[in-house]
């Protein structure tokens, strides 16, 4: 198993964002993580990486604790999470992906530079290598982020909405890239919004709405019934509970 999650719960200010999530993702799959807004998709990725505090539950990656396999996991955050006015070129940003394996102090070697070069080549932004990142279009920014993750040469990739508001060329480049990663035996978990392209892009599906609604191979999981359960009836009881908590706190003197 690439990722194995047991009974994980995450809450922001008493409102549960993830509730007793159980999830097993086999190695080598190209996985779509799908659910409505506020379903906790981004939070799930962050929780796997230990970037948000969990209330309970456990995560194991390749059968080990995340701390022990850190270098085998690459994360592609949402594009908007960084300031693109930062003074750096595309090459600088992509090279950052190699810092994890470059040691503390010593200058980068040819190995790191080559890895950055190859990563840019794979997503087709080699001609942008020396361009300042504040001159990139949204799609180019996304590709730079993808290249940065590739430069990490990880075995597990977690991507937060890489297809959000990108041009057609970028979408194609990302899909090609995902396919290539799968051919190399890598596992990829992608937060995705567009239900039309889900069956085409991925071969494994996680439907999430605070709880995991369904997990499994695309053909069995991508059914009307499952989608209805994910997007249709909200988990009303949880909503009511958190609303009640909020009201009680507001009523306090």
């Amino acid at each position: 198993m690439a990722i194995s999650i047991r009974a994980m719960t995450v809450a922001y200010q008493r409102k549960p964002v993830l509730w007793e999530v159980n999830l097993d993702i086999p190695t080598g799959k190209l996985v779509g993580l799908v659910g409505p807004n506020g379903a906790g998709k981004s939070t799930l990725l962050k929780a796997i990486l230990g970037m948000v505090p969990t209330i309970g539950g456990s995560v194991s990656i390749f059968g080990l604790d995340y701390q022990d396999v850190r270098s085998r996991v690459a994360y592609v955050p949402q594009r908007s999470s960084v300031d693109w006015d930062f003074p750096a070129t595309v090459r600088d940003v992509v090279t950052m992906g190699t810092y994890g394996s470059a040691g503390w102090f010593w200058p980068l070697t040819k190995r790191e530079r080559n890895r950055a070069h190859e990563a840019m080549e794979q997503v087709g932004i080699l001609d942008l290598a020396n361009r300042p990142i504040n001159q990139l279009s949204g799609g180019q920014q996304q590709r730079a982020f993808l290249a940065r993750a590739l430069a990490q040469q990880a075995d597990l990739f977690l991507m937060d909405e890489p297809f959000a508001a990108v041009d057609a060329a970028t979408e194609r480049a990302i899909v090609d890239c995902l396919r290539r990663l799968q051919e190399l035996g890598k596992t990829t978990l992608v937060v995705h919004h567009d239900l039309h392209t889900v069956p085409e892009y991925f071969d494994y599906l996680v439907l999430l709405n605070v709880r995991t609604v369904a997990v499994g191979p695309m053909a069995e999981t991508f059914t009307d019934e499952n989608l209805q359960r994910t997007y249709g009836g909200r988990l009303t009881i949880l909503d009511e509970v958190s609303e009640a908590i909020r009201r009680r706190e507001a009523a306090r003197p």
Partner: protein
Amino acid sequence: MMSVGILFGMLFGIHWESLSFHLLGIAMLLESEAVESFTPLTFDYNTQVVVVGTSLLGFAGGAIGVLLLLRKRALIGDAIAHATLPGLALAFFVATALQIDGKSLWVLLPGAAITGLIGAMTVVAIRTFSPIKEDAAMGIVLSVFFGAGIAMMRIIQQMPDGYAAGLEGFIFGKTASMRFQDAWLIAVSGATIIGLLVLFRRQVELMCFDESLARTQGWPVTLVDIGLMAATTTIVIVGLQAVGMILIIAMLVIPAAAARFWTWRLWPTIATSSFIGCIGAASGAIISTMAPRVPSGAAIVIVLVILFSFSALFGRKNGTVWRWARRYQQRRETDQQHLLRSIYEWLELKGSKPHDFGQTRSESFLLNDLEFVRNWSPLRLARTANRFQRDGLLLQLSQNRWALTATGIQQCVRAIRQHRLLELYFAQIANLSPEAIDRGADYSEHALNDQMLAELERDIAGASIGYAVPDSLHPIGNVQSLNHQSRNEANP
């Protein structure tokens, strides 16, 4: 002193990966033998140490300032600085009570550091534990601490024997009152910060750009962040004497802001900022040493602002002058293309369109008539036409009568072809309405390069057109004033 500048200037030429060694080398050079080797003007040894120490402070401040600006934390330095005043005063009280030298830096600076840090932590606490935002928290802390400090300073001033003499130097900065050991303290602090920054350059870079990446790679982000705050506090504290608490924020912010006009990469930005900070601090210290009544903080800020204004105007990457120049150039080129097109359109209307098969001079036309196809002021028309005459595209036959030369015809045909090919493209491929077509083509034709033009020719015109100029898709000129039914009929 200029040799320091030249030394740092050399940094710009070096390969950035080996920045660490150069920086360390220069820092060590400055600490050891360089002090003797500089013999500028008539400065004594003490002054030289003060100037070198202050420049190193400026250097470190410039570097740290870039990081603070990128993390949007620049003003925390200001809060720390203002919060040091009560600490200085308290330390002075305590030392006087214990009958120690109350003006020794070893007494004053720890006091300043303690209240400075309390101030910074109060800001963080207010922000975290209350609904008040950071800017308001900063305003509260800054004024309350500074006010308390001022009150205490009044008390000190009223103490017998003029004890306070010298303390006000911490508010506005007074390098003249700096002693030899003080300068060394500053120099060593500055050099240490630069050394640490060079050592942990990648961790700092990651933290400033994308904390999530730094965390997933397993770097101790919180520790690096604390280190950055510690460096900020150190610069503020040891810089009190040289720049003063009110203006020390300038050492952090102005060089960093100025550097953004010169480069779009992190380490060059830091190097430039350091260089600017170094020059500013050094010149300020020299001015203040030569004229002890000028507060050094003010002198430093003035020099820094001059450097900033120069950068904002002439900076290679974003300087206003270059932007204006580029915009002017663009406008000029656009005007030229527009006029060329108008001439063609006018001559076409008159039934004598120019062609570049052996025609050496086009039919003549009146410049005023062009107003019909292009709604320009006569002045603008004349100016552009005159420029064309200088470039050999137009020929003035009489007062108002002009004609295209052979080169003019060539360029004219090229401009109109570009425009009409684009119009065809928008009509056929993008499916725009006729009114939008002209505007769309007008907007994009100035960005066409030869390769794109070749693609347009292949995709749109194909073999059917060859090198000819396609007809216009819309009526030409001011349709309200004159009727051109013939054109309208061609394109229902």
